């Protein structure tokens, strides 16, 4: 049976090995689901969040995961809208990655809010001035889009496509994929932006607050750009990881280079703007009665963090990705991609955690917070959920069309 599900012409590891691989993830998932249950049944006192750290690990991860998941929309955009055929090799994988990231993020949000059963109020009584409303709307829509984009990949399964209606539906859906790609891109631009706006609009948090361009703070645009920049890098990383784990070459080397090139050219653009924005911020923040230097007084969050974010994990990988010679060397290429992703992860961390840790009132103190096991477990559950979905998709679906060709040649 298992054999009948694996696409013709590709080889996959034995069922036994496969089970051995997914078993640990299943266990992790189970633990995480227990933690989730605790949080829903007993309330968020199970976490280490508090009135000052009202956002914690979860929100931080949502922002990160969604930034990395941006590869899905951006690859889709390049392939279907800008007709960059090279990317056909990774689009399926990108869609699955995107689906995992977004569904994971939404799931965690469901636990993070205190009254999940009232979440739909946001759709019925929306405050359109709130960035969070924008985020909620876009993410729910885009998750639907991703789910739809995922369908054809599933229907292409060797067994399923034997069913005529499924095959035809896949075919018809695939014809209209450009629509979804376009809609998805539109939505993604908005919610990547509004995630940035989320913190940029906080008048009361001069560390995060940014002046508005039009109706959105600068972080709105920086987030879009940064997400678009690392998205391809992340696709590159996951593809590379998949091929390392499965010990197969899944795409032609030039695909890696191409992804790296896109990533690099966007990243350099982003870093320049980010630097400008930071300069501007340093000069305006003092008018709010806060000293920019003061924000970096605490050793944990010293100026090193700013340097690391912009130079070490921003400028450096950008330049690396832009140089043809680095791209030619896969080790360096992957390293650069990883650094770029790390840079964004750090940026999201600074936006969420550092903003809350910093005091505002004259009698405030600097506060730190360590997530409880329930918080960590919940996150790990999402991770293992992702691993499982991807593993199954990789085994039974055609994530990398080039794989067969590469093997047959």
């Amino acid at each position: 049976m298992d054999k009948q599900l694996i696409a013709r012409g590709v080889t996959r590891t034995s069922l036994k090995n496969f089970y051995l691989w997914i078993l640990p993830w299943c266990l992790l998932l189970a633990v995480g689901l227990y933690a989730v249950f605790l949080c829903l049944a007993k309330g968020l006192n199970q976490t280490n969040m508090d009135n000052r750290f009202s956002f914690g690990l979860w929100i931080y991860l949502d922002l990160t995961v969604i930034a990395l998941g941006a590869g899905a929309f951006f690859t889709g955009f390049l392939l279907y809208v800008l007709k960059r055929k090279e990317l056909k090799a990774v689009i399926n994988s990108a869609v699955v990655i995107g689906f995992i990231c977004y569904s994971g993020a939404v799931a965690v949000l469901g636990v993070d809010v205190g009254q999940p059963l009232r979440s739909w109020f946001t759709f019925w009584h929306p405050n359109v001035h709130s960035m969070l409303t924008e985020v909620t709307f876009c993410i729910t829509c885009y998750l639907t889009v991703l789910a739809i984009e995922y369908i054809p990949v599933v229907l292409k399964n060797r067994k399923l496509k034997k069913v005529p209606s499924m095959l035809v539906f896949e075919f018809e859906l695939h014809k209209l994929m450009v629509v979804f790609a376009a809609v998805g891109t539109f939505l993604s631009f908005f919610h990547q932006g509004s995630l940035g706006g989320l913190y940029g609009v906080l008048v009361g948090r001069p560390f995060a607050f940014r002046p508005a361009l039009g109706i959105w703070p600068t972080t709105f645009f920086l987030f879009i750009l940064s997400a678009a920049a690392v998205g391809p890098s992340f696709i590159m990383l996951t593809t590379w990881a998949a091929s390392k784990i499965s010990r197969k070459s899944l795409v032609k080397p030039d695909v890696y280079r191409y992804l790296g090139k896109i990533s690099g050219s966007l990243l350099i653009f982003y870093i320049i703007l980010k630097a400008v924005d930071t300069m501007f911020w340093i000069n305006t923040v003092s008018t709010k009665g806060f000293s920019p230097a003061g924000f970096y007084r605490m050793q944990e969050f010293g100026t090193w963090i700013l340097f690391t974010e912009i130079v070490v994990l921003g400028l450096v990988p950008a330049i690396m990705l832009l140089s043809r010679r680095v791209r030619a060397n896969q080790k360096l290429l992957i390293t650069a991609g990883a650094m770029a992703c790390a840079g964004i992860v750090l940026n999201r961390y600074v936006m969420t955690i550092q903003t809350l840790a910093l005091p505002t009132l004259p009698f405030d103190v600097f506060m730190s917070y360590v997530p409880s096991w329930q918080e960590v477990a919940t996150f790990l559950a999402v991770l293992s959920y992702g691993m499982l979905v991807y593993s199954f998709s990789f085994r039974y679906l055609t994530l990398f069309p080039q794989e067969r060709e590469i093997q047959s040649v």
Partner: protein
Amino acid sequence: METTQKSPRYGMVIDVDRCTGCGNCMVACAVENNVPPAQAKVTERTGMTWMRVSKLDNGLPFPENRSVYLPVSCQQCDHHTPCQSVCPQNAVEYDIESGIVAQIPVRCFGCRYCMTACPYHARYYNWFDPEWADGIERTLNPDVSARMRGVVEKCNFCHGRLQAARAKAAADGRKTESESDYTTACAECCPTQAIRFGNLADPKSEVSILSKSPSAFRLLEDLGTEPKVYFRSEQEWVHTIVKKTSSSELKEHSNG
């Protein structure tokens, strides 16, 4: 005294020189607004204190160390109220008829975005189910509904009392409440009358006169959120410390 024609903007002036930090305002507030007592696991960081008395000191070592107490509740910001614009489902509203920044817990779904937005840390999340020890729930105030776990709440300037005052006005056939009928629990129970409550829109009212005095100040004034809670002190150092904000502080607390 009847209110002036234009709708009132209620506010407070708190004389920190008169505040002994006894904590009456905190418990009176909790009693008035049915805020539950702490469960065993609750800490300073997960507690529910709509009104919280904090210590402000001049940072000098003993014995030069001077300190005052600042009772900080919701500052009822007047302009681009940080928490109001961010709430995704309109659970926070600027009440045009009283200037109160209204928090409606039954609309709230506990995303806590407003808490990250509030620079005064005046918003509190129900981390626990509310629990009153056997029978104490019989002493709850019927004018305020008890909140459930998983929502954000904060000082609404004892809006239950405002509603009562309005009802009384209606019964007397008056359009607006009379300010003599409406004061907050914290102001009422302050043993040194450090907290004064009234209508800032009425130039004749005590609070608006006090709020204009040179000894008056507000927290994080530079943010431009225009709080309606004023503080006043004759002590120079208090003004200096309040001016330079906490980013210069080096204290650190940790949890978890």
